[in-house]
């Protein structure tokens, strides 16, 4: 055991979304500090929503994130729709599924290729990757463009959907547009397969730590929109009871609220969905999992990225299926399902919207008054739910790697943070690492 003092202070972690610092201090062979600090400024979206008409809520909360704006929009619409008792048409459900797949693909491709792959391929970012692995980067851009085009065709824009509204859509894709997307998705199968092959060959770090995996689940499909909350420890409960699982709490070193359920921490995201809902994956996605060596329950958090690759295959296939159904039914112009504010009692009403966005369960709960304005809102973001688990992983990992040189330790820890695909918020900072000599 080394007695050398080591300090790893990554401030901030690059190739993740936002401000997060890794701090590890080892003195005399003992771990003094091992933390992941979130130092993001609170953004007060919940307060901003109070007093706004329910029709605006999805457009405001979409801005919480430029990567999962469709996810926030969908969770927001579902919260209002549940509160107001709005029933959706089959066409609306299908179109929402399709645009949601577009966003999952977009985000997963970004994470796998632009943020994670450079670590494995020995480069600092995607730019040198473009020189050394041109075909890999071109493939990523091709897949990302298709994903963005799905969002634009269905919801009117690549980011921050404009055509999604409470009760339905305000714009509809044409059959020709859908057919074109479907042809591109079929062609994208080759790119998805190549993504699986690329990732199956990567040397994923070996590290196991079982935790409580939490995701939505549905009886009839791999859940992305709506469903019950289930955990790998055997609990299942309605999304409305989310607070029993999320149990937000505060710690001094983080501006994000952390969550825990029955254990010290829990994990949400692609790996949790894979572990909980594996049986509902498309057969081609299951085949991808086999190639990647994934079989539930997977307890290596680094493989969250590999689970995203499985979901890329699933979403390509399911998007093809959804377009089939839409084309078979024929796209119809529909007014959004009507809202009757007269039904709201003097106490107002409340509803919970739950979705599986790329990084895990996203909950929006709204309280709406008789005038249709929000009197309260609660938004629970996946990254918050994962931070406690990420720290627990770091604390389990550091003793296993503390004999490595500081640079190698730092890379292991950064890759662990990136595996969670945290989305903290936008910023750019330089990283700093010190190796202190023994006094």
């Amino acid at each position, binding site marked *: 055991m080394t007695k050398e003092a080591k300090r790893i202070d990554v401030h*901030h*972690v*690059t*190739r*993740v*979304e936002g401000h997060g610092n890794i701090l590890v201090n080892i003195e005399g062979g003992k771990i003094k500090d091992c933390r992941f600090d979130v130092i993001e400024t609170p953004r007060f979206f919940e307060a901003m929503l109070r007093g706004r008409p329910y029709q605006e809520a999805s457009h405001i909360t979409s801005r919480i994130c*430029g*990567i999962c704006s469709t996810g926030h929009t969908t969770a927001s619409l579902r919260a209002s729709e549940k509160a107001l008792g709005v029933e959706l048409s089959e066409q609306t459900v299908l179109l929402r599924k399709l645009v949601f797949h577009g966003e999952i693909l977009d985000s997963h491709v*970004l994470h796998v290729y*632009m*943020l994670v792959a450079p670590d494995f391929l020995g480069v*600092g*970012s*995607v*730019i*040198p990757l*473009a*020189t050394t692995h*041109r075909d890999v*980067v*071109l493939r990523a*851009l091709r897949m*990302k*463009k298709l994903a*963005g085009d799905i969002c634009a065709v269905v919801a009117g824009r*690549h980011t921050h959907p404009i055509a999604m509204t409470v009760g339905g859509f305000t714009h509809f894709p044409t059959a020709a547009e859908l057919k074109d997307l479907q042809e591109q998705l079929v062609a994208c199968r080759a790119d998805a397969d190549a993504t699986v092959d690329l990732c199956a060959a990567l040397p994923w770090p070996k590290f196991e730590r079982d935790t409580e995996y939490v995701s939505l689940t549905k009886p009839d499909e791999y859940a992305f929109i709506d469903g019950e909350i289930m955990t790998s420890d055997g609990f299942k409960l309605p999304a409305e009871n989310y607070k029993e699982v999320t149990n937000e709490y505060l710690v001094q070193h983080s501006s994000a609220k952390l969550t825990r359920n029955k254990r010290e921490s829990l994990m949400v995201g692609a790996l949790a969905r894979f572990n909980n809902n594996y049986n509902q994956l498309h057969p081609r996605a299951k085949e991808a999992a086999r190639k990647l060596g994934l079989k539930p329950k997977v307890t290596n958090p680094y493989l969250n990225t590999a689970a995203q690759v499985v979901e890329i295959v699933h979403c390509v296939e399911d998007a093809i299926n959804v377009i089939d159904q839409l084309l078979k039914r024929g796209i119809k112009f529909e007014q959004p399902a009507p809202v009757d504010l007269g039904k709201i009692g003097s106490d107002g009403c409340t509803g919970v919207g739950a979705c599986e966005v790329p990084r895990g369960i996203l909950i929006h709960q709204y309280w709406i008054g008789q005038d249709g304005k929000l009197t309260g809102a609660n938004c629970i973001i996946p990254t918050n739910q994962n931070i406690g688990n990420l720290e627990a992983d770091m604390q389990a990992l550091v003793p296993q790697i503390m004999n490595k040189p500081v640079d190698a330790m730092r890379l292991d820890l950064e890759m662990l943070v990136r595996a969670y695909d945290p*989305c903290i918020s*936008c*910023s*750019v*900072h*330089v*990283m700093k690492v010190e190796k202190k000599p023994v006094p």
Partner: protein
Amino acid sequence: MTRERTLILGIGNPLMGDDGAGIEAVRRLAASKLPGHVTVREAGTPGWGLVEWIQDWPSVVIVDAVQMGLQPGEWQRFDAGEVRLIAGEGTLSLHEPDLAGGLALAQALDLLPERITFYGIEPKSTDPGMRLSPAVNAGLPGLVEGILNEFAQ
């Protein structure tokens, strides 16, 4: 004057004050008379997607707010060869890169158009807000005219 197919691309975020100057400039250009081989588009903040915007054009004109050390509202035309694309490793940590990052990616992929021309206008403030500063507003007509002159019949 060149007659090759040319894309004039406005870059920037109109929600961030003068960062939206490039967008406002191409909106004015789109409402002006330009020859048929010239196409005007708003790209917003395209990030990695910049490659998709520019790769199939022999000539691209990029209009953007650029910090050049000039007075706010002053503008300048320069060719790709005249400037260094500043996209250091340290700045590439975002989910999406800035213009320099997007161009650097296009360059690394060997997908840069043969000719890239920049029209940069010096911003005064890029704080949140949907208004351009008076200085940039005053500089815009000259910038737009400069671009129109480049394509005058």
